[in-house]
């Protein structure tokens, strides 16, 4: 029966069932992945971010909140120029992590 409306999906991230395989794989080779303090410098300086929504800070969060597909979609815009790595105050090797995500 069509009621003219339907159940809307929950906006909650269900942390109990989030698949962290990719993030944990990255963590093994890039222990600095944990040290992000979400300052957003990477996003602010991003060459691709000048034209798109590209944000490494968000990519890291997406991977930890079960939105791997969105993260990979975002990475498609990356130009790998490396400015993010140069500005990261925690010295995270961002380019390496971006590359590793694609493997």
């Amino acid at each position, binding site marked *: 029966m069509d009621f003219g409306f339907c159940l809307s999906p929950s906006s909650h991230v269900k942390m109990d069932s989030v698949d962290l395989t990719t993030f944990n794989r990255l963590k093994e080779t890039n222990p600095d992945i944990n040290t992000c303090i979400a300052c957003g410098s990477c996003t602010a300086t991003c060459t691709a971010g000048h*034209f798109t929504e590209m944000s490494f800070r968000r990519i890291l969060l997406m991977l930890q909140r079960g939105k791997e597909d969105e993260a990979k979609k975002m990475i498609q815009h990356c130009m*790998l*120029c490396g400015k993010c790595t140069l500005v990261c105050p925690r010295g995270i*090797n961002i380019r390496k992590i971006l590359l590793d995500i694609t493997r």
Partner: protein
Amino acid sequence: MNSQIFHPFVLPFVLGMAFVLTYCVVGLLRVIGQLPKDDRKKFWRSLVTPKTAWANVRDLVGDCLFHVKIWKRNPVLGYMHTAIAFGWFMIIVIGHVMLFTLKPLEGIELQGVERTLPNFYYPIFFKYFAEETLIFAILMDFFLLMIISGILIAVVKKIHSKIVGVKRIMHFGFADNLIRFALWTIFPFRLIAEKTNIMAFWWLYSIDLMVFMFMLPFTRYMHIPTEALFILLRHAGLKPREPRKGYALAQIYSCPSCGLCIDACPMSVNDKNSGNTSAYFMKRLRNGDREEAQRIAETCMQCGKCVAVCPVSIESCDIKMSQREAVPYTINSDHSYLGNVEPETKGNAKVLYFAGCMTQLTPKIMRAMKQIMEAAGEKYAFLDKDGGVCCGRPMLLSGKTAEAQAMMAKNTELIKQSGAKRLVLSCPICYKVFKEEYQLEGIEILHHTQYIDELIKRGKLKVDKNDVNYVYHDPCELGRAFGVYDEPREVIENIGHLRKAKSEKELSTCCGGSLGSFILTQQERDEITTNSVNDLIFNNPDEIVTACPLCLKTFARKSPVAVKDIAEVVANQLK
């Protein structure tokens, strides 16, 4: 004197020789077979082109026998290698010459097979089978002793490398150690056998040769036959396409694992990283250890210093790039958004300035360039004043050749739209890709060092000389890649005094910031930077001048003296 034509002790040698010859012929066919068609055509043509043919002969003698390049770097090692290689070559040659002068021995009739058979082993065991004339005997003994002197140096190098001026040597596994032991003992055994004629030593000598030849294809000594082929391929102007095939394969087997690149590599400042140098990379490839090879390829900063010091001229940077390209990526890049990027400038500028991503992080370079171009009265325009499109080199460095095309196409379009005839770049990273990969016919591509040098020489830019002592750091992608050594130095001499760095020009040490490496951590990079800074301040300069925004940013982290870009220094001295 033994008046016989055969003794069983020659068998080990003959077997070994037969094996190694077969292996080499098969290997040769394999390498040539793996070359892409157009490369193969280039190769055949190069063999008959007089210019390359001459180069082939020159390098075959100069590199294979005398190793001129090692002599240049380190005469002791040069002698060591020449003594062994040339000495051994000579006793083989002399052995054969003696064969031609050999009179049939008394009472022996050589016929048919018997006549040709000894040709295979007579020169090697000559003294057992025939009598030497005095002059040859002296020559043979001379070269044999020369070889042994080389071996003595090798032994010293193995035990305490610093005596011969080498900090780090390669560490080998069992097979390499065994064949080295065989090599070192061949000649002393021969000497003893010849002088005492004890049968046991003739046996030992022959068995040593067999061991050496059977192990040769599986160890670094394969470089002896392969290098000759590599020289020919190199002169044909080929590029490695796949990390373990064709041309690259020839290079892999040509690497003698001499380890000269270990000391040269900027990463070796941390001993832990000396395993990430090109010598080990080539070894991993030879052993088929793909995973490690990939890791080393991605750790490498692509500074090119290993290539600069390599006595065999192995293009390890290119092979590492082909290794990077060999890794599949699961993500399709989507740079379609670049289609909406509008040019910032359209007009009648003659000079177009492209700062590049890195220079966006060092706005003082951009400001200095603006001052310089205005002072020179140039009609200029900025291509990326408010942030532009990446040049594509970082993407290329990651091995994603196809993905870089979108950015390169967009930049090409924007540059052509500007109508300018000269493109000035501040970043050597951009400069390299613009020079090598972009199709910008009719547009002159200059790095700002070259551009400023030209402005000063043409009198368009007037500068004051001050009393500051500068040292100039050669950025890898400007210096080693394009030989731009003189322009920046001439510019600096116009505005101050130039001091020498401890190592410079083609031996300049990477700043450590390179975009080439994906794996190096900040801490490892910092170690490299500190070492590089120490090289630069060796002669106590007041300021370090560089010509790359990335070097500038990197040095600024660790340098005890001021670090400036050449444009900035010039802008400060404008009249």
